[in-house]
């Protein structure tokens, strides 16, 4: 199969999966935050609220798309477009899995592998600042301007510790290509960059995670879009699809930072322990246990409606677990499972922190970036460089 057709196919699959993930990430967030706050979350639209993202999309599309009278039209219309484009482009270099053979050709589960892939992600996230800054300015509204300026100042301040935290594991793997970074972490969990001898990267993992929270404007760093302080900040004047575009850009940035954390520190699509010890059966085991728990809870559920939904969920999980035992798709699905598990764990961490922590005040936030995070990242880089040079 020639290269062009294969690339178009891969791009279509990745785009479709990504957009569905973004929609359902919102559902997951609402459910998890609801359960942290001891309530139910979306429950009525479809079984357990599963059609809620569809309802939200329909609502946002059919809302009136108004353009306020005194805005700078070109910049006003370009800003959400820029934000979404930059957020979605960065998925194109992320390796989702190892080499697979489809239709006779051997290809990697990655849209493209640049030998400067890591710099590409940094570059695209630097360009993402413009969407927010220009949106705040173009809205001709003092709250939006303040929110946009604060948000962009926060994003570029936290880009520094982010870049330095990225440089530390690079000293261990000696390459900027994302595929090779994952391949350099083959083995078991002891070979992942976070625990790798001679220089375990736990400090830079923490710094990267915190800087990633600030880059994506998530709690506890979400003052620029805080509803109760800035009248929704830089997207005050945006309605319907343009507002949906900003939301989608925020979730796509979240997914990108989670994928980068998984690739740089947690070994990408590498399994927890080597397949010689049976790690190929872990996905099946996890899904089987989840399915059995769902079915057993479906026997005497708390709500009558769950007498139907929980057993169906259990059966679906058991079928997916059985799929992982099927040899033709095993080579493709198992690395994908490990990658999805790690990314899912970090996304859950994002949502968990959103439900738990209060937000920083703006001066506390900036002081934290420049006086705490940046020196810590620098010190970690220094120590890592010293250890790598001396060993």
């Amino acid at each position, binding site marked *: 199969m020639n290269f062009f057709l294969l690339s178009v196919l891969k791009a279509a699959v990745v785009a479709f999966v990504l957009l569905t993930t973004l929609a359902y990430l919102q559902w997951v967030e609402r459910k998890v935050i609801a359960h942290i706050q001891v309530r139910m979350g979306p429950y009525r639209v479809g079984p357990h609220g599963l059609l809620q993202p569809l309802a939200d999309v329909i609502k946002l599309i059919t809302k009136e798309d108004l353009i306020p009278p005194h805005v700078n039209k070109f*910049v006003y219309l370009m800003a959400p477009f820029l934000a979404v484009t930059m957020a979605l482009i960065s998925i194109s270099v992320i390796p989702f899995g190892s080499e697979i053979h489809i239709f006779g050709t051997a290809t990697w589960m990655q849209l493209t592998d640049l030998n400067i892939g890591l*710099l*590409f992600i940094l*570059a695209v996230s630097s*360009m993402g600042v*413009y969407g927010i800054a220009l949106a705040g300015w173009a809205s001709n509204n003092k709250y939006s301007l303040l929110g946009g*300026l604060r948000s*962009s100042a926060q994003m570029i301040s936290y880009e520094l510790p982010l870049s330095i935290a990225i440089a530390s594991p690079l000293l261990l793997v000696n390459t900027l290509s994302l595929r090779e970074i994952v391949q350099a972490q083959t083995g078991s969990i002891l070979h992942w960059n976070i625990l790798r001898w001679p220089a375990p990267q736990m400090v830079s993992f923490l710094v990267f995670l915190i800087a990633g929270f600030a880059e994506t404007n998530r709690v506890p760093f979400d003052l620029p879009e805080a509803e109760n302080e800035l009248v929704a900040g830089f997207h005050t004047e945006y309605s319907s699809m343009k507002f949906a575009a900003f939301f989608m850009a925020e979730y796509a940035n979240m997914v990108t930072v989670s994928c980068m954390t998984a690739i740089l520190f947690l070994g990408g699509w590498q399994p927890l322990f080597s397949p010689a010890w049976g790690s190929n059966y872990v996905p099946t085991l996890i899904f089987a246990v989840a399915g059995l728990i769902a079915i057993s809870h479906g026997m005497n559920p708390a709500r009558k409606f769950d007498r139907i939904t929980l057993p169906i969920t259990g059966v679906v999980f058991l079928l997916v677990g059985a799929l992982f035992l099927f040899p033709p798709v095993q080579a493709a699905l198992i690395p994908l499972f490990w990658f999805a598990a790690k990314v899912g764990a970090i996304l859950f961490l994002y949502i968990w922190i959103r439900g738990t922590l209060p937000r920083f005040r703006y001066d506390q936030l900036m002081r934290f970036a420049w006086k705490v995070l940046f020196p810590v990242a620098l010190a970690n880089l220094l120590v890592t460089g010293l250890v790598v040079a001396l060993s």
Partner: protein
Amino acid sequence: MDVILFLVFAIIAVVCAVNVVVQTHPISSAISLIGVMGSLAVLYLLLGAEFLAMAQIIVYAGAVMVLFVFVIMLLNAGSEAKRGRSLAAQLLGFPLLIAFLALASYFIQRFYPGNTPVHFGAFKGGTAQIIGRALFTQYLLPFEVTSILILIAIVGAVVLARKEI
């Protein structure tokens, strides 16, 4: 294919550069300048300078231009007023510019005739490893001096932008 890519991005670069010079509002000039830098980054990729292309986007388009956009927003710079240009400047300005351009192009064509065609991927010497090696062996002194220059710039900017002058 290389010719098409070059032509597309060169035309985008020239159009955005003309926009930088012609637009009255500084924000439009700034956005056009970001367009110039983006298309120049693609031209660097065509010339095999991939590290430099990413550095251009990270440093120039992603940091320096953000600084420009910030300052324009903070100062609330409005559109420039169109007055006070002398007749000599209006009559001679554009033709002299074209003459300067023609002279520069003539000398370029004269001294570098029929030279190397630029294929994408023909020059593989622009990777991060090669530039890093050059920076840390042959150009170590300029590298260290540049870091001190940046320190001076940071201190200067902090001092100049304080509230009490």
